[in-house]
């Protein structure tokens, strides 16, 4: 092995580097995880580490004698007076949930204000991401904007340039819609090879929320936009980065929203409080946060995040510009990379599917690396351009397996394999990696991120 490859930390500084060829050969020779482990001992170790001294209570604990001590001896919470109402005026998760938080990927960026934190998909349920766990991507840090001083301006090819306060916007006809929000660079570190260990880092630039606000078409009509010459809009943020993105008018008039609400409350500052653009089905960078201005124009704007970043490099050296749509994609969130199965037997395998072109029609799951597939159950609701939760029964017989999921959307588009995606786009695109994800289950019960 090249000594340079032995450095601690990430495999790739990412997203543009690759594992050395020699290193990949060594992997193939030695395998990833030959060591078989004792499930019970390890799961107790993990539990003990986190609970620090709490009794190792588990249905797994073989309880000799009369029975489980946690049944036979009442726990303290059954024999005490609980906390009063409003002890925590804004509620918090249980203290036992501290492991599931937004996390950074070490070495991905060198400046924390222009960085990413990933949502812990491995432990989340359903299709709504708790607002405090919504992934973050900031280009120049986040700000907490004073809503009383925030304004939205509409200008450009309009009859009347307009200004709205938050008072104004919250009086206008309101809509509430559930949509997914995925960064265009989600799974970007994996274009060339496996680079990160868990679904939090492979797919965690993904969240699902209910957004409340005003349709952009309402505001464009109020300003009297030019229906003939107005082909594009520019959306601009009020933060230091002044994020700007071009959106085609056809899309702007379709389902784009100017949102102030998220999951029943106001947007969180990290998500653009008090106002952000919602562009269903389109990569997150276009969902301009701290939205201050919409300009109507007759040509695209070629902004910094449309020329210097968020351009997809193809094998012929051309950069795809204005790549926007997040095509159908899915991932199994549990069991997933970095997790360990408790023992043989029954599991509910669960995951997420989504498409920027509409509803998910079906999700198939393979347990043998793509040779054979079974169709999963889709949980209601199945909404356009929203996360869709799938589940499927699985009895693990203790033998090695490779788990995959494959989404099909209502246009008939089928989520591609890595081989299919790379055949067209190579490995240097960074953005819009929607390939089928593989999780390898070892006989030990260890689950690992692999590519086939």
């Amino acid at each position, binding site marked *: 092995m090249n000594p340079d490859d032995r450095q601690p930390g*990430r495999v790739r500084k990412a997203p543009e580097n690759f594992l050395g060829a020699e290193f990949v050969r060594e*992997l*193939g020779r030695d395998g*990833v995880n030959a060591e078989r482990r004792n499930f019970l001992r390890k799961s107790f170790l*993990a*539990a003990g*580490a*986190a609970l620090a001294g709490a009794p190792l209570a588990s249905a797994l604990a073989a309880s000799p004698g009369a029975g489980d001590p946690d049944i036979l001896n009442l726990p303290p919470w059954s024999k005490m007076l609980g906390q009063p109402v409003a002890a925590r005026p804004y509620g918090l998760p249980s203290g*036992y949930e501290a*492991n*599931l938080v937004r*996390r950074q990927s070490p070495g991905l960026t060198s*400046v924390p204000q222009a960085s990413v934190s990933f949502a812990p998909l491995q*432990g989340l349920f359903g299709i709504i991401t708790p607002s405090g766990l919504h992934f973050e991507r900031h280009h120049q*840090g986040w700000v907490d904007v004073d809503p009383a001083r925030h304004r939205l301006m*509409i*200008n450009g090819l309009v009859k*009347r*340039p*307009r*200004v709205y306060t938050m008072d*104004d916007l919250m*009086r206008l006809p309101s809509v509430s819609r559930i949509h997914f929000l995925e960064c265009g660079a989600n799974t970007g570190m994996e274009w060339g090879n496996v*680079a990160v*260990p*868990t679904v*939090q880092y492979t797919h965690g630039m993904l969240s699902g929320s209910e957004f409340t606000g005003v349709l952009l078409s309402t505001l464009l009509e*109020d300003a009297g936009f030019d229906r003939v010459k107005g082909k594009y809009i520019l959306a601009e943020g009020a933060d230091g980065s002044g994020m700007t993105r071009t959106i*085609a008018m056809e899309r702007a008039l379709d389902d784009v929203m100017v949102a102030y609400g998220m999951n029943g409350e106001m947007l969180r500052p990290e998500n653009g409080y008090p106002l952000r653009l919602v562009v269903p089905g389109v990569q997150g960078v276009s969902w301009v946060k701290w939205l201050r201005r919409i300009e109507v*124009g007759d*040509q695209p*704007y*070629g*902004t910094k995040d449309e*020329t210097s970043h968020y*351009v*997809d490099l193809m094998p012929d*050296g*051309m*950069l795809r510009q204005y*790549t926007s*749509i997040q*095509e159908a994609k899915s991932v199994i969130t*549990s069991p997933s990379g*970095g997790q*360990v199965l408790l023992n043989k037997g029954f599991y*509910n395998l669960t995951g997420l599917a989504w498409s920027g072109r509409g509803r998910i029609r079906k999700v198939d799951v393979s347990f043998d690396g*793509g*040779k054979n*597939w079974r169709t999963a159950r889709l949980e209601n609701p199945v909404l356009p351009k929203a996360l869709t939760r799938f589940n499927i029964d699985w009895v693990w017989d203790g033998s090695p397996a490779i788990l995959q999921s494959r989404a*099909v959307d209502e246009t008939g588009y*089928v*989520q591609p*394999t890595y081989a299919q995606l790379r055949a067209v786009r190579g490995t*240097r695109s960074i953005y*819009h990696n929607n390939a089928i994800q593989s999780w*390898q289950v070892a006989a030990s019960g*260890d689950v*690992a991120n692999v590519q*086939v």
Partner: protein
Amino acid sequence: MRALLLSMPVVLMLAVGLAFPAHAQFAGVGRDATDAEVKAWDIDVRPDFKGLPPGSGSVSAGEQLWTGKCASCHGDFGDDNHVFTPLVGNTTAEDIKTGRVAALKAGGSARTTFTKVNTVSTLWDYIHRAMPWDAPKSLSSDNVYAVLAYLLNLAEVVPADYVLSDRNIAEVQARMPNRNGMTRAHGLWEVNGKPDTQNQACMKDCQAEVKISSALPDYALNAHGNLADQNRTFGAVRGRVTDPKAAASKPAAAPANAVVTALLGARGCTGCHGMETKIIGPGFKEVAGKYQTRADVKAYLADKIAKGGSGVWGSAAMPPQAQLSKSELESIAAWLAAGAQP
């Protein structure tokens, strides 16, 4: 009756029209923007230079601004990669002729800003709206022209005696190294764009053999920290213990430390200082280590932070930190003196 029903909305509209402009569908909501307001906020510059304000700046003026405001992140020559990806490099005289950067096809080399950006308007707009990093929108138009002229000279697009202005910027556009390197011929832009992959939903015996092409080596499993600590401690699965040392429980951080570390983020300190190691300035732990034996360590550090300085840890200057109150200065200094514990 029919006529009456039809006429009622007309009557209502007339009534509303007395108090609000005839166009206002949403009476009493929003107002027209003034010309001065639009001028203040409409700062974008388009590829056809719509929105570009008049002005000019020379390469040499840009060099001076660069040294003071830009070099600490981007390096003296715009090619530094310690904080951000390099701005300049990997373009050739041939690229300027063809408008296609050959290095993008060849691969392997770092993608600098100049290898990618096809429109010089973008660079003007970018610098104007978002730079410098910690003081965006603080440069005058002439300053932006000057900084951009210097960058263009570093990229060998313009000569050292060039004065960039709104009148000659179109000439520069014709020399941008990757001006012909962008395509919109793909399916991810138009609402009904055509996908470029065509997988089939095969269900049975879809392939004969499955071969693992890539996996994480064991030594990298802990690169993101102990995975057991990133999963629930109950439920269908556990997180894998990837750091054997993590089995011993860590003492909780003292709340006082958490207050200071939050302050470091809120006041912008973490933009330049890592917890452990250098970003632009030294890591907090490094500072703590260097001065821990000094008798007046707290007063010394409080004074250093307030006044700024350079030369102790390298050439990058730390500006005075006037945004910190006296008590904030003292808290940070005391935290450093106590070893900079996270």
